């Protein structure tokens, strides 16, 4: 039975720069990473870690001068997680595109979910959905509605490791 929870305050840090500079970044421990475009990469960390992430990444990109930019975008996107068997069924009711298949490692992808732009991490039995904070209520309502037919319930996010990544960091394709 799938479950839905929101990870409030999950750290989201966006890095902009030349492709080569972003390619050379070392992924901070305990983060999910998604390459949005050649010149933008996003790191997602546990709640409360945004400042440390910004500092780490700014340090790594310091040599780029004004050719790189690190922005804390934590408040700009909501982070919802669909977890458990059947989470793909909930997703299928709110998105018309095919999820990539994860072999265990998180797969980052982008596409429309609940009729709004989304950025997703896909893992077996887990789909993390980031959408604009301005449509937070709409997305929550839409996902809950989609889950009605498959007995999905919304729960509180786990107190420990809510983004489900541990503290080791994972390299994402």
């Amino acid at each position, binding site marked *: 039975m799938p479950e839905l929870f929101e990870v409030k*305050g999950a750290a989201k840090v*966006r890095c*902009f720069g030349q492709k080569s500079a972003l390619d050379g970044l070392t992924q901070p421990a305990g983060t999910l990473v998604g390459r949005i475009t050649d*010149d*933008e990469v996003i790191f997602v960390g546990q709640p409360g870690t945004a400042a440390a992430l910004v500092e780490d990444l700014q340090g790594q990109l310091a040599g780029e001068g*004004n*050719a790189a*930019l690190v*922005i*804390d*975008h*934590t*408040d*700009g*996107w909501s982070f919802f997680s669909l977890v458990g068997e059947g989470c793909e*069924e909930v997703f*299928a*009711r709110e*998105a*018309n*595109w*095919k999820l990539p298949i994860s072999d265990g490692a998180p797969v980052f992808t982008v596409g429309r979910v*609940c*009729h*709004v732009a989304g950025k997703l991490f896909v893992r077996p039995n887990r789909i993390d959905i980031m959408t*604009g*904070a*301005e*449509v*937070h*209520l*709409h997305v929550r309502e*839409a996902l809950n*509605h*989609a889950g009605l*037919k498959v007995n999905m319930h919304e729960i509180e996010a786990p107190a420990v490791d809510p983004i489900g990544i541990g503290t080791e960091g994972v390299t994402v394709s």
Partner: protein
Amino acid sequence: MSIEFEGRDVAIQPGDSLASALYRDGVRVFSRSFKYHRPRGLYCLSGDCPNCLVTVDGEVNVRACQCAAKAGQVVTRQNAWPSVDRDALNVIDKMHPLMPVGFYYKTMAKPKFAWPLAEGVIRRVAGLGFSDKSDAPIEIDRVNRHPDVLVIGAGVAGLAAAIAAAEGGKRVMVIDEQWTPGARVAAGPTKEAIDRLAASAASNPGIEVSSGTAAIGIYEGPMVLALAEDHVAHIHPQAIVIAAGGMEVHRIFPNNDLPGIFMGRGAARLAGAHGVKPGERAVVWAEQPEAIEHARTLAAAGVVVEAVITAPGVDASGVGNRQIEGSIVEAKGRKKLSGVVVKTTGGATEEIACDILAIGSEIQQNMHLPRLAYDLPCILTGDSAHPGSSLSEVETNGQQAGAAAAAGLPLYVNPPASKPRRCGTAGYVCICEDVSVKEVEQAIDEGFESAELLKRYTTVTMGPCQGRLCADQLRAIAERKTPTEAARVSAPTTLRPPVRPIQVQQAAAGARHHIERHTPLHQRHLELGASTLWAGPWKRIFSYGDMQAEYEAVRHRVGVIDVGTLGKFLLAGPDVVEFLERIYPMRIADLEPGRLRYGLMLEEGGVIIDDGTVCALEGGAFYCTVTTSGAERLESWMLDWRDAWGLDVFVVNQTASLAAVNVAGPHARDLLQKLSDDPLDKETFPYLRHRRITVNGVSCLAIRLGFVGELAYELHFPAAAAVDMWDAILEAGKEWDIRPFGLDAQRLLRLEKGHIIISQDTDFETNPWKVSMEWAVKLDKPEFVGKAALVRAQRRTPRETLVPWQMEPGMATPPEGMTVTIGGNLAGRVTSSKMSYVLGHPVGLAWVITEHAKEGGTITIGGAPATIAGHAFYDPEGVKLRA
């Protein structure tokens, strides 16, 4: 187990459809026809004809033959008064001569009041069921599926194709309208084959069989739209196999719509699949070998087959009491079939008494889905490709189709061509809309020769069957009637989804037309009793209940407004100055850190598309705001230009990650100073400057600007701090009786200052010259978007100019959109208007023909005089906002 049928219980058996259960119970007339209220009985039992439409549990127009009977269902028949069995409205059937084809186009046109009256009567007595008009929304879910191969139809060919495709390593989805594969197939070799293949498919993990799911449309993608019991499926396969089968051709002869006349497969389904004896004495019209099996099925059910009428070459030896080579030319009976007239190939006619006629006519493809699949990766198989094939041929053909789909072979198909069918000279062409051969011929005589016009004029093909029964017959009549125009009339009419009637809520499944965007303060506003309105894609605050009080607070004390909906962009990178110089028509390079500038945004034609501010930050970055509705559009717009120019710039949309509030009014500084230790005085922090300050413990970008014409500070800060910041400002402002204010008050405040709102006061032709904003454009810059057009436009006097206007005290405020006249001639329109509390008279903005747009000139708005002003009405020198 039983269902409730018009007040009585009707027993149901496992595997029953509503149609079979009711027929077993003795129901013979299932409906009354659309127009003439002729009695109609079961005919096709495949969901193709309109004869068994009933109301089930309040849902109208349910096909009884396709609906599984479930205990407790409440079923009623429709379109009759007082009852279907004794329908007084059947009198209309006697009025044919008074209602020629297209009569509603020809009659009651004069006097004019006649048609609305007639229309009401016609709508009541003609039609199908009456739907529930209650307001309760019924929401249908939409589910997306992504199989590799989609097979439409779980018959022999479809299941064989599915198994072959799965064996080829593909994930296969099979959909079928029936509630179980083969549910309507009579016992026999075909049923056995379906059961065998269905069992094999069920045990194959690569195949998902979704029964009770009807494909109703095929679209580009490809995407197949399908109706399931409780949702609408959007299926996105890589390849489609259509195995939708075939159906017998609708035959036309006098009285061809009497209850007791069945399509051959329909009669066989009733007898063989549901175990219901259709009647006592049957005549079987066997135009092809399959119909002989139908005769045997009827005989096995205990029906006396009086005669088998065969086409040349069809062997009916040993089946039925008599075998006659010929055809049926007429049916006899009034309310039900009592006999048929047979014409032998020798030319003799003979009447044979019977209560059932099973028409085993030529098999035609179910062509609706294949025609929608034109030029898409799709393959046809079974009867959909080769109607009338043998069972083994069908299975082999299905296997080949599945293997081809799995191999990703080029599958693109041409839809089967429409072809004219043999057609009698009398009888009903269209049993959905009650259109006879005579009426079609009459329409052709009136000049409606092309198929499309015939369709619209006669409504043939426009009923529930969507042309399944009648499209080819329409073509046959047209070609017979106008042979010289054959090429023109023979084109099939345009086919569009849905191919089956659907419910309105099914059409809207999954749709959300209004997605509300909220700032992080939205809930706080609602708690304060705010009313909202749409502002672009956002829900913004219109008022907190007392607009004038909100206004007075800003003008005389202090107010605060949530402006978090503004588009907010951080722009940085090595080429950012060059980029902004090209994006904006004003100068950017000389904008020092800490300063800001108002900026228009223009499209290539010089038309204003947005406006906002540009703040130069330390370190070479810039912070830009745009209007509430502009963020997403302008983000794409800027990225497009960046890519087009190849400039190294980062465009970061921070609209949602930053909250913004504007504290405005004579005591704005006093209020903020209570929450901040940073100096806010006029000398340290003057007008049109910005600084990073800490307010209520939160680092904010504070911007001094003045849309409302008062001392104001706009604070931009992380959205997570929004609620605490809002509460702190309201708390600190109690000393001055602070009020939060909404858009209604803001619009008056800005109007008194003469500020425009993009898209309210501007349109798709508005350039800066027309709104007297020359000061916002620097034509001596080398390049910016819209410059060339503005240079050209500068040589011409604009036809209209936006001007401020005012009326005398005591006059009513004209509505926005009101026309402006001068000397009785149309001279413009009002774009904004409000009653000014501080001035005591109406003020506004209006487009006025340029030659009249002179300060002090008089215009007329809604019959009342108004004077054109030359400057802002309130604080024209800007002393207050610079305080």
